[in-house]
């Protein structure tokens, strides 16, 4: 994470910075990076010659937001980009559909069921989605609580292997 970004074309540097940010872990689900989560909205050198990085919060009140800002700032400082501008982007609002496919695989591997349905699904409003157990794959699971250990997760239990697990909610 301490590699200084070498001078070069803006596109190459922006790509190097994205790779750098892909190393910044989400403080609450550390198997995911902030790039996996889809919260890095832009990385670009603007006319003022400075790097601008746009970050969007997942939930308005997510307590991880400030920790993430600090982590991004630290990573950019270490890369020699102390004058980078961090911007909060609210529009369009974050959706769990921005999780990368790598994020889905990483969640599953650590026992958290990834989001199951497109946000636009009308079923989502009324029914708990069918969430396969991330441990044994069984499709007979039940929702214990719509709220879990962080704002973005719900609490489920598998009826087959009896293990409790977290489900990353659709928002």
């Amino acid at each position, binding site marked *: 994470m301490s590699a200084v970004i070498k001078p070069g074309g803006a596109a190459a540097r922006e790509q190097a910075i994205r790779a750098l940010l892909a190393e910044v872990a989400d403080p609450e689900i550390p198997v995911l990076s902030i790039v996996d989560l889809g919260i890095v909205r832009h990385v670009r050198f603007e006319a003022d010659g400075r790097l601008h990085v746009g970050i969007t*919060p997942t*939930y*308005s*009140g*997510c*307590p991880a937001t400030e920790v993430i800002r600090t982590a991004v700032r630290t990573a950019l400082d270490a890369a020699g980009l102390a004058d980078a501008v*961090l*911007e*909060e*982007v*609210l*529009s*369009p*609002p*974050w*959706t769990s559909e921005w999780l990368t496919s790598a994020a889905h695989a990483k969640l599953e591997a650590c026992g958290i069921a990834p989001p199951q349905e497109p946000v636009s699904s009308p079923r989502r*409003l009324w029914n708990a989605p069918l969430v396969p157990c991330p441990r044994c794959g069984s499709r007979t699971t039940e929702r*214990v*609580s*719509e*709220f*879990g250990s962080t*704002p973005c997760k719900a*609490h489920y239990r598998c009826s087959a292997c009896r293990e409790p697990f977290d489900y990353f909610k659709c*928002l």
Partner: protein
Amino acid sequence: MSARSRTPSERDPAQQAAHFRYVLRLADTSLVLGQRLGEWVGHAPALEEDLGLANFALDLIGQARLLLTYAGELEGRGRDEDALAFLRDPPDFANLTLAEQPNGDFGHTIVRQWLIDAWQLEIYAGLLRSADSRLGAIAAKALKETRYHHRFSSGWLIRLGDGTAESHERVQAGLDSLWRFTAELFAADEVDERMQAAGIAPALMELAPRWSARIDEDLQAATLQRPPAQPYPWHGRRGVHTEHLGHMLAEMQHLQRTYPGVRW
């Protein structure tokens, strides 16, 4: 942090004052309701409900922070979100009177939450088309969370109302006691009218029947009786509060008032 949206308000002081006031009202309702929900942490009937109420408190306080920061910029006197949240007295708060009412029992809290969730659903949906793009962006974010909140509060309202004799009685009592504060929800004053004329705010008059229909639908499923209209308008949004707000703020603001400028 994001680029400021330019609205006509910035050229007309009266318009700018109304704009500030409008955003402040939305912010204070979220802040005060969030603080009230926070009082449940560790006290809810079950762990899952404790988590749920704490999650809503977080969402609401997060929304309040975005709105207060914006309100501070519109005001232009250098007050940030902390100055607005922690260093104002009750008459300077502009929340709905309903939001500051004490928690009571779980049923009472659910009724308060459900009435305001249904109100915020209409307000935020209306603000999606606001001429003020920053307010529209905050509303779009908040609306997604409010849908979640309403699903929870209406779900509990129905479960309690259509539950046991005691749960029915308690939630009906909560409704009877809080209903008098609902006349304020859609009572437009000069601030609302100015904002509506500028295309910044939706017309409250048009939102009221939609709110009312949603309320009736949930009440019917919950087998609860809608209390008669009580036209006395409370004036929390104009800074005239019930005595409960002062007690709540005394606790919420204690640290910042005792140690001005304290930092973690």
